[in-house]
């Protein structure tokens, strides 16, 4: 599904990703861990197509297509979804409008007709239950005045409605209380299927108790320095990052 080869990217002329290699197959869940500032969000943003990240080398193939050649909205229509580490507030645009616009754009791209108002609302209500959000959130401006945890749940709501083929979750668990963590994990697990893949960025092994990954990678200084199965996360929890990062090349200061 996703094949990242020697991906290098810079922000404002500063190299951040220094040769990432990653293969994700349909049906798999990969966890990416790693110290602060190691490039995890940069990787997620590059995959989603955010401006300001310059790809200086390597390639990303997604479902046989050159992902990096697509605009962000085209990537979304092709089934890529990024749950933001810091979801953005969009004053004046309601949640329900964005959900509808997004879903219909994706359906249109797939050659499906637009959902009518009734079917749309039925779908949204059902997914609201999944993430235990009140209906009133639909009519508020996107993320405006939402608490940190509500913003994260809102990301999962969008994901549950848009049903992406490739979901990138950037620290969706950060800032969640224990109950919310379970809710988010349930939302993610409900979406797991043989056709879908997920990349879950997290600092906490706790999330991986709920979302059990097929592979765990450690990203440090812009490179994947170690990969393993779910036991790697437990190991990291016990020992920290030093033992996996110390033989990795340091970022040139």
């Amino acid at each position: 599904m996703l094949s990242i080869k020697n991906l290098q990217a810079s922000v404002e002329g500063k190299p951040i990703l220094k040769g990432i290699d990653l293969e994700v197959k349909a049906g798999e869940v990969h966890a990416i861990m790693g110290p602060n500032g190691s490039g995890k969000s940069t990787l997620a943003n590059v995959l989603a197509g955010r401006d300001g990240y310059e790809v200086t080398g390597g390639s990303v193939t997604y479902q046989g297509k050159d992902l990096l050649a697509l605009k962000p909205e085209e990537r979304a229509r092709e089934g890529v979804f990024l749950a933001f580490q810091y979801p953005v507030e969009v004053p004046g645009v309601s949640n329900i409008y964005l959900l509808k616009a997004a879903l219909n754009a994706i359906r249109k791209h797939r050659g499906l007709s637009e959902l009518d108002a009734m079917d749309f609302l039925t779908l949204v209500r059902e997914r609201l239950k999944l993430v235990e959000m009140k209906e009133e959130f639909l009519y508020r401006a996107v993320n405006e005045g939402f608490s940190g945890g509500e913003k994260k749940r809102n990301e999962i709501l969008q994901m549950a409605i848009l049903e992406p083929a490739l979901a990138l979750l950037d620290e969706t668990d950060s800032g969640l209380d224990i109950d919310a963590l379970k809710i988010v994990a349930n939302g993610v697990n409900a979406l797991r299927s043989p056709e879908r893949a997920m990349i879950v960025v997290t600092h906490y092994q706790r999330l991986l108790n709920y979302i059990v990954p097929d592979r765990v990678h450690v990203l440090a200084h812009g490179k994947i320095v170690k990969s393993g199965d779910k036991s790697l996360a437990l190991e990291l929890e016990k020992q920290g990052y030093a033992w996996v990062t110390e033989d990795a090349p340091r970022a040139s200061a």
Partner: protein
Amino acid sequence: MTAPVSDSRPLYLDAINAQRAALPGQTVPAIRTLREEGQARFAELGFPTARLEDWKYTNVSAIAGQLFKPVNGALATVSSEQLHSHLFADLPAHRLVFVNGRHAPALSSVGKLPAGVIVGSLAEILATRPNIVEPHLGKIAPTGTNGFTALNAALFADGACVHLARGAVAEQPIYIVYVSTGDTDSVMTTPRNLVVLEESAQATVIEQYLALDDARYLTNVVTEAALGANSRLEQYRLQQESTKSYHIGTWYVRQARDSRFISHTVDLGGLLARNDLHDILGAEGAECEFNGLYVVDGRSHVDNHTCVDHAKPRGTSREYYKGVLDGMARAVFNGRVVVHPDAQQTDAQQMNNNLLLSRNAEVDTKPQLEIYADDVKCSHGATVGQLDTDALFYLRSRAVDEQTARDLLTYAFANDVLSRMKLAAIRLPLEQRLTTRLLRGRSLNELELI
């Protein structure tokens, strides 16, 4: 267009002399004096130049360089069918329509007025009940703060007169429409409105300025409003003049104890529009709220000068202006707030946010706070910027194409001001107009914004 002249003052003074005898209310001493003062001040001042601080960014030499011939009506006839689509048709209101400055009874429908409420044309009320007008006209707005208000004082012939007696409540809004139509190139109208609310009275007044033809005319309007103790006035001012026109509007408001004034100002038209809104919170506990939106493109220019005079204690003022500029448009915002030594516990807030859609658009925004009391809360903020790139990316990452995302964010930015309007019969059609302007005609239902 007439060839520009170096000093048009003599031309205007000739025009004033030629018209004076025919102006309504000349037999009322206070009115006659007001006109004479206006003429004298105009002779003295002429039109403002860029040398004046208040006119530094708004150049009116195009107006000053020729005679805009004062008219009062005629030039064209308008049918109610022609007018219909331009009006807020779903708005039950006491409606007064003026065509090229003169009251058009056939197009007006004042209807039945509640007890204590007078709504009529100024010319008519000056003829029949001058005592309603005399104590106020020219007493709220100083005569001749600049050449435009002086000229208006010298030449005004008609306008709306609204008077609410103590405790009177006008349930339906009072809707004043100024229509420019026909061959109005190089023509000037000088409407004069007077709104008086006695103690505890309540009214909503809508002023709409529109054009049926794309002519190059000048509207030079002055509105005076006096709010008695505990009264409440909500004002809507909608400027949709022709794209070649000049609109100079001056509002003077004076508020008594615990009165509340809310103003919604929307500028969608005009080649050059200048609004001066001056509010004197002249007694304790007076409150005002100004909401403003300007959407400017091409080579148009919109200038909002506001001044809130906190003269007495415990006054509250809120100013919230937003602008969207495209093309080579230019906007000016100058928010003056004066807190006099007496005005302790004043609470004043001011915001002006501008969105630039083009590199060639320009904004000059300036708060001007003059605070002479110590126990006050005053804040102000001004921004000039582009669309939020994070919000743009967020929408695009949710499959919304870039152009739609830009349009949406622009619309949401501007609509924030309209959403403060209580009258749905005004707000919804304006939102519709805003969508045509900013959303390339996509319909609102489809958008379901907030």
